[in-house]
């Protein structure tokens, strides 16, 4: 009798079943790890022999997709031009020294965790030679240890807060001195000394505003408000109310993503006008203007390296080619342009390596990328050989009724990038030796760096 009870005493998972399922778990783990070895091929295009594998890592779904999808588009355009010997690549032959680029595309779904996982996959499993990708600082930070540990290369196309100088990243977006340094004096001279700073609540806006605040105070201006809203917020009643109360001469906005259209709309809706209190923004570009409706942006300003209205033959071609590929209603903006030009930096570097008979790996591409110049839509740009950031133009655009910017300020040439704000960290520079030893490159020179422009060589 008692035996019968024992077998049914505790009706949880019986031991036998438990054993079965444990085996199942193990089996599934093994099975999955064995099937996961294939490589995704993208498109049916004929890539010829021995293509070069390049990772493209932008989210096309989730909250950041609103920006990153366009970066992916711009990257695809550049890769297509390289593979088909068109656009800026015309005359170089199809591909790089006859080898075409095979893009390995991943979509991390706006999830930092997946950026990390997928960058590991790109490097370890797909064996890409380098990766083009990321938008937010958080996603860059989440993949940075991967690229450093595995010593691979990331081309990162986004304006950011600076304070970083990895030997595994090429920063082709604006460093703080290429976006903030010129805009603050402009604001004080044209609008007045009192600035109200707003931003999304994360590292880039906070650090950006901190640098801007230091710059503004240095020239005798004053910050009358400093407010942050959670990332992705679309409710700005309180911040706008505080702006009204503080009566600033201008508003400096570092809001990002879907907060931007909401802010501009509610700003105007609350009766604040661009002729009285203009907004100077960093992350507001043609794309966001299009999404909010240009009537809300007219009269406000953005400080960026590139605008669709930049008057160069290269830009005219870029805009035309982009619209031809992705539709006439699409606009181009500074981040997309950076994504576009960094692809050519990469291609030129690979070409250099291959022409010299070298092998494509992190070390050779890294050394070859340093100092690359490119006649970009925004003008002649160059990768700084010391700190791996890019020489870029600094421009200020005033938004018009048609959603395009009138460029009201531009530097005469591309500005040398400085990774650390010289206002906050005077004399701190980043200089990588040749060849890169991957040791700490930070030097305290003790004296503030002067602005240098790129000279034609």
């Amino acid at each position: 009798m008692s035996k019968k009870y024992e077998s049914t005493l505790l009706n949880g998972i019986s031991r036998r079943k438990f054993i079965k399922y444990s085996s199942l778990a193990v089996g599934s783990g093994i099975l999955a790890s064995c099937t996961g070895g294939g490589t995704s091929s993208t498109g049916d295009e004929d890539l010829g022999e021995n293509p070069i594998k390049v990772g493209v890592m932008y989210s096309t779904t989730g909250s950041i997709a609103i920006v990153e999808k366009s970066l992916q588009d711009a990257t695809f355009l550049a890769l297509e031009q390289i593979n088909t010997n068109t656009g800026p690549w015309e005359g170089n032959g199809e591909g790089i020294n006859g080898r075409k680029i095979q893009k390995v595309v991943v979509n991390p779904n706006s999830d930092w965790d997946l950026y990390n996982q997928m960058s590991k996959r790109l490097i370890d499993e797909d064996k890409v030679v380098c990766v083009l990708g990321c938008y937010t600082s958080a996603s860059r930070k989440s993949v940075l240890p991967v690229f450093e540990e595995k010593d691979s290369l990331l081309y990162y196309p986004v304006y950011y807060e600076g304070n970083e100088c990895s030997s595994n990243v090429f920063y082709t977006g604006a460093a703080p001195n290429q976006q903030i340094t010129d805009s603050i004096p402009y604001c004080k001279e044209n609008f007045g000394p009192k600035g109200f700073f707003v931003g999304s609540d994360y590292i880039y806006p906070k650090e950006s505003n901190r640098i801007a605040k230091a710059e503004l105070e240095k020239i005798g201006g004053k910050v009358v408000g400093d407010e942050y809203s959670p990332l992705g917020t679309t409710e700005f009643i309180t911040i706008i109310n505080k702006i009204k109360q503080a009566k600033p001469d201008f508003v400096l906005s570092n809001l990002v993503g879907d907060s931007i259209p909401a802010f501009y709309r509610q700003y105007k809706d609350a009766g604040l006008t661009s002729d009285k209190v203009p907004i100077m923004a960093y992350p507001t570009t043609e794309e966001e203007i299009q999404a909010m409706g240009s009537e809300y942006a007219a009269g406000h300003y953005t400080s960026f390296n590139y605008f669709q209205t930049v008057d160069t033959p290269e830009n005219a071609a870029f805009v035309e080619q982009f619209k031809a590929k992705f539709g006439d209603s699409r606009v181009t903006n500074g981040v997309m342009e950076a994504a576009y030009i960094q692809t050519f930096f990469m291609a030129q570097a690979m070409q250099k390596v291959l022409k010299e008979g070298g092998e494509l790996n992190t070390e050779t591409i890294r050394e070859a990328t340093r100092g690359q110049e490119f006649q970009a839509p925004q003008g002649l740009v160059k990768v700084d050989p010391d700190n791996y950031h890019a020489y870029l133009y600094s421009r200020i655009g005033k938004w018009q009724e048609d959603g395009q910017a009138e460029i009201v300020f531009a530097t005469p040439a591309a500005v040398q990038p400085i990774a650390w704000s010289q206002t906050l960290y005077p004399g701190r520079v980043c200089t990588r030796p040749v060849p890169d030893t991957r040791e700490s490159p930070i030097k305290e020179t003790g004296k503030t760096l002067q602005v240098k422009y790129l000279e034609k060589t």
Partner: protein
Amino acid sequence: MYAHLFSFFYLAQEAVAEETAQAFSLVALSNQLINGIGVVGILLLTGLGLAITFGVMRIINLAHGEFIMLGAYATFWMQSTFGMDLLLTIPFSFLITAAIGALVELTIIRRLYGRPLETLLATWGLSIVLQGIIKLIFTAQLKYVKSPPYISGNLTLLKDAQGSPAIAISYYRLFIVTIAIALLVLTGYLLNKTDLGRQVRAVTQNRDMAKCLGVNTSLIDMLTFAYGCGLAGIAGTVISSLKSVSPPMGQDYLVDAWMTVVTGGVDKLVGVLAGAFLIGESSSGIAYLLNDPTARVIVLAAVIILIRYKPEGLFTIQKRG
């Protein structure tokens, strides 16, 4: 008088300018609280649909935000294709989202009545699917919805010494509040004064009994759920021109809508109004005194404590044990 207040405020501001802190001002605070009504309107609008699907039907709908998103995209589509005015799209947006809601009820919700946790999981899956489909159709980029040009500007209640508005609220915000309250009244009327509403309540209170009395319960279920989704669609339409339109936009409203409904109590529609008012005003008030993120944390903590002590919400009659 107000000039005094303002000069005081400027003095005070000079004093604390180093910290860039906002000086306290009664006028500004009243302005903030008046404008808080704008937040209340949006909470009410986004919470109303949930008050139907959860309050009346007890369906835990985590795809509620996606129905708001669908409403916004319906409006975007009608505007960009037919050049329709936003106001004009409201009834169509309601019909489109309600139709999708009915379809969802037929294919998914119907199979899960009486299994709240499964419903919760299914609607989460649904929210992923809806976002994915919209992204496939409309791409991931932000979309532009034009606001009605005739509802613009601000209602100025009080001017300061310089003649600029000191207390003012935008007409569009007032419009949102009006729509929200109108829908609330309409819903209350439908639910309490019409035959259909009586059937709905009969079904939700005692399904079997209602069935015996000849009520077509499955039709009532479908209609009620569709109506709740339609309300979410209207919310999406109305806020689309004030906020941003993108596939994941609904996620932003989900938690807030839930908190609104739970705070007020789900048994009475007026609870939603109360919940929206309490959450909207307290978060604007705290945000004014401190800042937005802190206000959010404090309000959420307050809601947790409220649920702890009054899980049935503030406006529900004590039931017999």
